[in-house]
């Protein structure tokens, strides 16, 4: 039928157009029809409205229906012309999904390249730091002390509480079966071995990785985004040394001390439970300790601490320096640094156990 009039009214701006869009798509005509568009009743036409009208015209043309826009107010025509000019039908936004095989391959190669990148970082870090370490007066001791305060002193309350509670738990769990055999006093041995050898260093490492490692990764990552790292490099400073070395030295000092503190708090927690639940007096407990602990148990725990510290600092700084481009990747780097630090700490702990077993410690 000739002369069909399409009358549009009201507000044709984007927030109001959802219904209109659906109705326009249902419109169809017979081949050879001539339609007239009338937008004189449209109070407001924005580019979304203009786009819908332009698309309608194109859709109708596919059905060989012509839509005449001659009667349109000139403002509306100008806008529709502009949109028709700039629109590219079917232009893809280009969010192609990757297949599962591609993603598997990518994540596999990423693990490999991450390991290589980490080694590369460790090498460069050592290369940058060595000259400083050979001339100790040039080390930034002020920053080192600052790091000890942030990573060590400030972690004391939370670490103390957690180590105390761990001691309490171990004493509870271990005390009950020992009591059945009347071997209450061996609770001291149990506590000393588990806390000093394993739990205290591990707890400390986990807390430090979560508290301090994440902060390192976030700080360095943000500095990458704001180009501060590049600025350091341009000034002629070596960012690995200036940013990572004080953290490394600081944590190498702080971690053994924190571990020692966790030892004490864990034993204290166990002692309280031993006294209240299993009838081991404080004096008995304390007298038993020298017999229960070989000095090696203590040292085995403490010696792990600097190794864990080195793992945590190098992993979190590596991820910080690997940040690129977006704020999102700072978040990713932070998460990765914590997860991988803890993972590697536990792996290292397992290796320690095997090695100590071999050398009979």
């Amino acid at each position: 039928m000739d002369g069909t009039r399409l009358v549009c009214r009201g507000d044709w701006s984007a927030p109001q157009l959802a219904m209109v869009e659906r109705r326009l798509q249902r419109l169809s005509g017979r081949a050879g029809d001539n339609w007239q568009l009338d937008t004189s009743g449209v109070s407001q036409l924005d580019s979304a409205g203009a786009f819908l009208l332009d698309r309608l015209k194109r859709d109708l043309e596919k059905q060989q229906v012509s839509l005449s826009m001659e009667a349109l107010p000139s403002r509306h025509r100008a806008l529709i012309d502009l949109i028709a000019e700039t629109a590219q039908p079917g232009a893809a936004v280009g969010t192609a999904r990757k297949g599962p095989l591609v993603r598997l391959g990518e994540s596999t190669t990423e693990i490999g390249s991450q390991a290589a990148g980490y080694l590369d970082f460790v090498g460069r870090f050592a290369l940058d730091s060595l000259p400083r370490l050979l001339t100790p007066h040039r080390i930034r001791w002020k920053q080192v002390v600052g790091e000890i305060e942030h990573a060590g002193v400030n972690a004391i309350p939370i670490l103390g509480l957690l180590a105390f509670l761990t001691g309490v738990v171990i004493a509870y769990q271990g005390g009950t079966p020992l009591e059945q055999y009347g071997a209450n006093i061996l609770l001291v041995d149990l506590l000393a071995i588990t806390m000093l050898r394993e739990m205290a260093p591990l707890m400390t490492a986990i807390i430090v990785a979560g508290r301090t490692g994440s902060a390192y990764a976030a700080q360095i990552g943000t500095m990458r985004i704001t180009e501060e790292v590049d600025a350091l490099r341009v000034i002629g400073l070596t960012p690995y040394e200036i940013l990572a070395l004080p953290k490394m030295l600081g944590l190498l000092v702080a971690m053994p001390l924190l571990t020692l503190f966790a030892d004490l708090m864990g034993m204290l927690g166990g002692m309280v439970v031993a006294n209240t639940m299993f009838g081991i007096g404080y004096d008995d407990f304390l007298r038993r300790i020298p017999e229960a602990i070989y000095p090696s148990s203590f040292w085995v725990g403490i010696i792990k601490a600097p190794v864990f510290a080195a793992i945590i600092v190098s992993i979190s700084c590596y991820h910080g320096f690997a940040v690129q481009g977006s704020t999102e990747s700072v978040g990713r780097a932070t998460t990765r640094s914590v997860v991988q630090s803890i993972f590697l700490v536990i792996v290292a702990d397992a290796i320690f156990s095997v090695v100590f077993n071999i050398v009979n410690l």
Partner: protein
Amino acid sequence: MNGNQHAILQAKGLETRLGGNLIHQNLDLDVRPGEILAIVGGSGSGKTVLLRELILLLRPTRGTIHLFGRDCSHVSPDAMRKLREQIGVMFQHGALFTGMSVAENVMLPMQEHTRLRRSTLEELAMIKIRLAGLPPEAAARKPSELSGGMVKRAALARALALDPELLFLDEPTAGLDPVSAGAFDDRILELRELLGLTVVMITHDMDSLWRATDRVAFLADRRVVANQPIAELTANPHPAIQAYFAGPRARDRRIEQ
């Protein structure tokens, strides 16, 4: 839209204190529909603070701001949403969401404020991206993969997403080379014609001031000391204005004119 006599944006008696510093006092500003108004002033004269107040991110200590004829000091969340639909803002450093592609950045306001189909939104986003002067290939890229000039254009595309009546630009041409900056000015003029925009921008760019503005509001002594076309402004005897336009860069420009 309001009648031509009515200001689309009107600030009256603004006073701003930030951390004990008095930034603005008794500041008045009006923006007419369809004009391109530039806000200029020396560094630290409170231009960015004023802009943040005008886009309702910061509440002035005293005074009122009327947007589209309504008082913005007490706005319900619903009305605020409506107001936000009519305002587009391009931040100085783009403020593009780094986790998303350019196209997704442009689509985000549309997704939130409309219920159009995704395919429609994608095509609309492509239109805005091209209107802002970006090549279509840029749509799929992440902001970190764009050059400085492209970031500005992408930010403009996002600001245009909902066809705002009022567009705020914070130093749109800062950091662009003269050719790109000129092209950006032309783009703004063209969009004003095509979409009937009203534009408020902060700029230090003398070329932009001469080329793209209808009026220039000059900020000094914590208020707007003059709001007039650039040719008249440069002749204004106010000492701060004279000092501003007597710099070597501005002088060359004036001789040319």
